[in-house]
């Protein structure tokens, strides 16, 4: 029986090559999109799954006075790990992790910078399941000055020499000689922790670390199996009061746990999240999955539409089979096996598309997704099973519909294919185009919002600014560098700061002492800057004056932003001028004065509102970011010049730089990825919908060939025939637009809420999408309509 089904199915497919090709192409594109996106989704969900213990990351909700709103951060305090273990028996283990970017190490005459070195507790390797290929997991980090390298790092430093027991030296604020005690297999890409080496905290321990109040590392705890983290969280305020020695600590901090497996995808609202490789909001991942399923659904609808439209051609066969004894179920199974076979063909074509598109998707997403069906029979089984489900979903309606034909009617030539069935087909077309139009509108808004973020004036200029990272050593020669750089006309300005704009900046406690009231303690975002910082970045002052160049003023002058000014004046009478703050006492360690108030500028991404912040010039605190404004017309020469100055001053240090624009592109990278992926999926949705529309238009033209012939004989023009054939589909696409508009408006309204600065939802986008979708639909239909309209009526009437 099955053989007979397959034979009939194959011959039917072959006989109707165009319809089969349209069906297979539509399904293949839909399946390919779905497989690629689902691979991405599964990859995202695989982050940190290889760890077997019940690990949580400790996070804080900080609510400092002076802050516009509280903030969640991934940071915690050094004493928290051991005290948590001490206090709660449920805490089986802990490790703290401090990231150290570009960590310099020396081996013999080799000097290099490791992109990421983690200082950790000795328990790190007992908690996390990173594969250790040499050394002892329990003792490798036990002693001070122990270091564990990844395989690639070991190879880079030692070549083919066995690294175990060898020593390397770190020269810096803490000069440490490390002994290599272990080698780790290279860190999997789907790990939120990416590092080149681990060394024990005890190697770099300072007494100040053990103070409560400083949030500068991540803490991970291993909870006993079955522990309810929420119940444990409820006990954390009492724990903090007990150990911190600060009775007001719970006013400023609230602690919470985040499961390790959620850190990658469920920490979108957590800032200062420095150890979170390729952090990506699971909402976006889920959105992709939903859109991919919609695209697949559109492809399935295509199949249903084309199959039911062609039902008249299969009706006689149904009648014949029934007359010789076929049961309805047998016929339904026959038609379902056809759709399953077609889905399997589509799968083959789809896998070719996947194979072609995967490198592009990997490049776009920065992921390392691979689909190797041979190596993973489980994946192959899932994909084939999924294909069969697609075949069943696509074929169930045509199968039920076709097998319901009454033999007596279909053998007489009647298929009842008009009326209700045509209406159902129209409903499906409307459903398909509603989804496609929805995605088109979403794409326009996503792209517009992204462009808005990239082009929005952030309140400072970031064009032609090159940033170069500084460390404790290179910072000492900042003044020399500045002087040498400014000697060239290629450079128009040089400044420095402790942070780069477009990042979460550090916060610190400060005191504001108004002339007419008590002192207030505040915790605010701070930026330590050189005295010409505002000039180079074009940050405008709305009151007061800029930092004075006199060295004696260093650390005494504060420039606050407008947001902070409003915050400081909130208890004052309403009409108190902003400038009244100038000269008032403000500062951290030793009080200085507010000398200026800057216009608000977005030092973070536009996802966040401008926070209260202040800048001050404290040269001896050091800078970590050199910013060089270059002559725009001579970029290459300017870069070469900066490099030459750098190399002259630091011959053994690599010159690394980034344009500030590129840094902001990095800040918006996830947004750009979302925008691109949604655009691609919307494009595919339109293409697949149009494939279906093309098939239906061709079928409609074919069915009405006699009518067209008669109309032409009676004097109808080509235009009127084209209008006649196109009109029905135009109505459907218009209806789809009307349905998609409110859905898209709601979805976009919700999505845009996640941006503090966002575009308006304008009607023009909806109207434009309607015009565009109609144009695309008309273009698709017109080929068939014009072909039918210009055909010689004699032929069609004769054949009748």
């Amino acid at each position, binding site marked *: 029986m099955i053989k007979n089904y397959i034979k009939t199915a194959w011959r039917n497919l072959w006989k109707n090559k165009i319809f089969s090709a349209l069906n297979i192409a539509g399904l293949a594109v839909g399946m390919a999109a779905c497989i690629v996106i689902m691979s991405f989704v599964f990859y995202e969900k695989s982050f940190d799954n290889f760890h077997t213990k019940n690990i949580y990351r400790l996070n804080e909700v900080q609510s400092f006075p002076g802050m516009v709103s509280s903030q969640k951060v991934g940071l915690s305090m050094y004493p928290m790990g051991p005290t948590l273990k001490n206090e709660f028996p449920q805490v089986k283990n802990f490790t703290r992790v401090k990231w150290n970017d570009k960590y310099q190490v020396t081996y013999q005459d080799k000097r290099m910078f490791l992109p990421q070195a983690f200082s950790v507790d000795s328990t790190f390797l007992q908690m996390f399941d990173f594969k250790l290929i040499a050394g002892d997991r329990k003792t490798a980090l036990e002693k001070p000055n122990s270091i564990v390298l990844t395989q690639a790092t070991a190879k880079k430093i030692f070549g083919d020499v066995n690294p175990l027991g060898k020593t390397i030296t770190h020269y810096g604020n803490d000069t440490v000689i490390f002994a290599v005690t272990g080698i780790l297999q290279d860190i999997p890409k789907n790990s939120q922790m990416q590092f080149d080496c681990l060394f024990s905290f005890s190697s770099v321990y300072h007494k100040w670390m053990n103070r409560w109040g400083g949030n500068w590392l991540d803490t991970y705890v291993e909870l006993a199996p079955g522990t309810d983290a929420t119940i444990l969280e409820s006990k954390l305020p009492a724990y903090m009061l007990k150990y911190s020695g600060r009775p007001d600590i719970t006013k400023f901090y609230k602690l919470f746990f985040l499961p390790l497996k959620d850190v990658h995808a469920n920490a979108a609202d957590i800032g200062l999240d420095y150890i979170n490789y390729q952090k990506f909001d699971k909402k976006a991942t889920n959105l992709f999955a939903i859109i991919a399923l919609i695209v697949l659904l559109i492809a399935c609808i295509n199949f249903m539409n084309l199959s039911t439209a062609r039902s008249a051609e299969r009706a006689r066969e149904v009648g*014949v089979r029934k007359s010789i004894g076929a049961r309805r179920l047998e016929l339904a199974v026959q038609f379902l096996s056809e759709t399953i076979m077609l889905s399997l063909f589509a799968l083959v074509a789809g896998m070719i598309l996947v194979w072609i598109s995967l490198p592009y998707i990997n490049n776009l997403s920065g992921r390392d997704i691979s689909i190797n069906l041979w190596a993973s029979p489980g994946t192959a089984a899932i994909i084939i099973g999924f294909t069969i489900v697609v075949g069943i979903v696509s074929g169930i309606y045509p199968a039920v519909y076709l097998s319901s034909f009454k033999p007596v009617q279909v053998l007489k030539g009647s298929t009842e294919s008009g009326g209700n069935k045509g209406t159902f087909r129209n409903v499906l077309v409307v459903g398909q185009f509603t989804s496609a139009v929805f995605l088109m509108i979403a794409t326009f808004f996503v792209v517009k919002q992204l462009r808005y973020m990239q082009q929005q004036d952030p309140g400072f200029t970031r064009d032609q600014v090159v940033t170069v990272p500084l460390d404790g050593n290179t910072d000492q020669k900042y003044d020399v560098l500045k002087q040498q750089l400014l000697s060239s006309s290629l450079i128009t300005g040089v400044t420095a700061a402790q942070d780069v704009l477009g990042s979460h900046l550090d916060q610190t406690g400060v005191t504001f002492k108004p002339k007419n009231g008590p002192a207030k303690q505040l915790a605010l975002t701070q930026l330590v800057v050189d005295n010409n910082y505002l000039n180079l970045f074009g940050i405008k002052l709305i009151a007061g004056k800029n930092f004075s160049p006199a060295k004696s003023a260093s650390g005494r002058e504060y420039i606050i932003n407008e947001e902070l000014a409003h915050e400081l004046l909130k208890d004052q009478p309403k009409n108190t001028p902003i400038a009244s703050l100038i000269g008032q006492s403000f500062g951290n360690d030793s009080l200085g004065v507010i000398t200026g108030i800057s216009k608000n500028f977005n030092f973070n991404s536009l996802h966040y509102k401008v926070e209260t912040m202040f800048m001050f010039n404290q040269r001896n605190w050091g800078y970590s970011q050199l910013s060089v404004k270059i002559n725009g017309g001579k970029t290459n020469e300017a870069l070469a010049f900066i490099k030459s100055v750098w190399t002259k001053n630091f011959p053994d240090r690599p010159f690394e730089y980034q344009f500030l624009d590129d840094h902001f592109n990095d800040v918006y990278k996830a947004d750009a990825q979302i925008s691109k992926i949604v655009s691609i999926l919307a494009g595919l949705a339109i293409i697949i919908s149009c494939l279906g529309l093309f098939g239906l238009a061709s079928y409609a033209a074919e069915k009405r060939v006699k009518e067209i012939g008669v109309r032409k004989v009676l004097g109808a023009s080509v235009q009127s025939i084209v209008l006649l054939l196109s009109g029905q589909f135009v109505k459907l696409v218009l209806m789809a637009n009307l349905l998609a508009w409110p859905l898209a408006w709601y979805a976009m309204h919700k999505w845009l809420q996640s941006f503090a600065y966002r575009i308006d939802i304008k009607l023009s986008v909806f109207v434009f999408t309607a015009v565009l979708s109609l144009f695309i639909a008309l273009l698709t239909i017109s080929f068939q309509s014009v072909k039918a309209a210009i055909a010689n009526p004699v032929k069609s009437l004769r054949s009748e």
Partner: protein
Amino acid sequence: MIKITELQKYYRTEEVETIALNKLSIDVKEGEFVAIMGPSGCGKSTLLNILGLLDDPDGGSYLFNGIEVADFNERKRADLRKHNIGFVFQSFNLIDELTVFENVELPLIYTGVPASERVARVEKVLDKMQIMHRRNHYPQQLSGGQQQRVAVARAVVNNPKLILADEPTGNLDSSNGNEVMELLTDLNEQGTTIIMVTHSEHDARYSHRIIRLLDGQTVMENIMI
């Protein structure tokens, strides 16, 4: 073998009700060859469809081998059809995507005959219909006469007790038409009951009895000598 009593069938549209069969009663004995004749719209094909369980009557009784089948559900009808009834249509109704062999094999597949037995039975019947040399051809590669021979082969391959033929020569020239009628006569002589709808007096003469219908009722019965 077949006993229908006061069989009724109406066709209704929103405005009109047409009576296709008006309390029609007919008996057909096993081994008979009956021709049904009458003008267009007299109910011939409707009767044949009801006899073949392709359509439901609106009233009356239909006994097939003594069993009331008028109220059979879809599944029982399919089972009864595949084991007992063969159809021959005016327009042949072969499946274009299947070869001659496969078309004839189809009823055997639905009755669950094993593959090895199917080959033997199909070859035997194709041989008998003198169409064996065309076994791998598709219907559209055959002449009308050949297609109808294939259709007859398909109708008889399951050895049905009853063959229902709806104007089997309607689309054939006289030579091919005669050939088909000879085939049906042979089958009848071998014991198969045949009920044939026809407009052709010539074809009707092959039968034992002619039932003439008008407005859904029997108006005359002729016994052929």
